[in-house]
């Protein structure tokens, strides 16, 4: 186990910003949601890695990761429900179709 923690940090940071990039460029609402999952996973990697390498005697990061997964699941459920609702109203899930409210 001699991989420096920075390596993991690079990984998670990259993943995080890939998620961000996805959020910004995807046209599909579900695609955007997936990008958010990437973001959350990147965060989770952070928590777990910090726990493992820096503070291994407590399970703080571990538990946090666990809860993030739970919350992400709940969030996804609601988000998908909402997207279906959008679909019902707009007949598609293109992100450009939710640009009515502006200015």
């Amino acid at each position, binding site marked *: 186990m001699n991989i420096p923690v920075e390596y993991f940090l690079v990984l998670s940071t990259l993943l*995080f910003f890939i*998620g*961000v990039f996805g*959020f910004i460029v995807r046209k599909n609402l579900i695609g955007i949601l997936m990008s958010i999952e990437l973001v959350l996973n990147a965060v989770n990697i952070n928590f777990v890695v910090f726990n493992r390498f820096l503070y291994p005697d407590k399970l703080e990061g571990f*538990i946090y990761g666990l809860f*993030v997964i739970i919350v992400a699941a*709940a969030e996804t459920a609601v*988000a998908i429900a*909402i997207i279906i*609702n959008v679909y019902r109203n707009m007949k598609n899930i293109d992100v450009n179709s939710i640009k009515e409210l502006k200015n």
Partner: protein
Amino acid sequence: MDIIKEFYSGFSIMNQEVSLVLVLVFVLLADLFCGEKGKKYLQLLAIAAFALNVVYGFTLKVDSTYQDSFAGMYVTSDMHILVKNILNVGTLLVFFFAHYWNEHENRSQSGEFYFLMLSTLLGMYLMISSGNFLLFYIGLETASIPMAAMVAFNKKAHESAEAAAKYILTAAFSSGVMLFGISLIYGTYGTLYYNEAANAFLAEPLQIMAMIFFMAGMGFKISLVPFHLWTADTYQGAPTPVTAYLSVMSKGAAVFSFLYILITVFRNYAETWQNILWWIIVVTITVGNLFAIRQKNLKRFLAFSSISQAGYILLGVIAGTPQGMAATVFYIFIYLFTNLAAFGIISNIENQTGKVGMDDYNGLYSTNPKLAVIMMLAMFSLGGIPFFAGFFSKFFIFLAATQKEMYLLVFIALLNTIISLFYYLLVVKAMFIKESTNPIKPIKSDAMSVIGLAICTIGMIVLGFISPIYEYMSSISFGI
């Protein structure tokens, strides 16, 4: 048995949460068993049950100024209790205003409405009272995810769906950013408990970056510029009671927990976050005001107004002193009555005529004098005009900010009040001065709205004069 004992002792200071959960369960069960016929009584039951909870909340007091349970996971103090009570009052008022809407347009889902709203309230409680970033995170999500569902409640309307989608996506995104910040906090501080983290002060850039990521997440909840862009769209699309709830309760809870975290966890970085907030406040107030000027839809208008109000609230936060905290909480308290009064009027009129445009309000005074007067009071109070309560809250919040010698900031904020007064007066002008060929017909408000509006009006008029409220806040507030 020890565990069970500890378990109970842990919950023993969580009276408000426990009673709220009881109400929650009660509402859930009532909704389950009441059936189609009982729907009529369901709302009354829910409101009554919650009202009891509100009353109960005011009886509480902790022995010492600060207490925690679950080994620091949960913290409380008189101030925490007070903030929760304020949120309770606001929620009750929202219930009053939502009654008519639930009765007529949301009949099938009124039980869910109450349940979801109360669960978000519980989330806010946890946000406020958490002593650990984990509980804080769960509270935050509890306060925002069901909220997204509520924003989508008006399922026939495209706007509602769009608003909900924007809200949930932005919320998820911001919580991602915030979590990234929290993860870095964990990585650098080595702990997620507030009181321990406060001591792990290293003055490292990474810690500051973590703090900024965290602040961005909070900025989303409080809708600070540049994290505010969802606000107007969501406020406009959401059902009006939900908008009211979002604009006051969600914001108030977030501000207080933000303040609490800043003065505990990040207290050693006070200078840094004060500098950051300085700019954020300036931008927030200015952008909120500038964007509000051109709005024609009242809900959207109030959204931008609430953005700039958020900037004003932060003037109390930025000081980080006990006086600042007292001023902040006082501001939230006053803002609650004022903004809810405005939304009460809007929802009242929207429910019965479907009109929310500023032009629709032309000549309102000639047809609905009482509503127009209350709306005017709300606008004046928001604009900080005496004798209305808004003046006092604004004065105190500025006073708190100047305590830290931030005269320039206060001056900019004050110049901005001129702009804000301008658009608040636009509403007054529409109602009183302009004449309309097609004014809103005289409206007979339902009893619940009347009660709600009466409470708000009384609040707006008398709260400034009742100094014990502020005195009490001042006596229980704390700072860096």
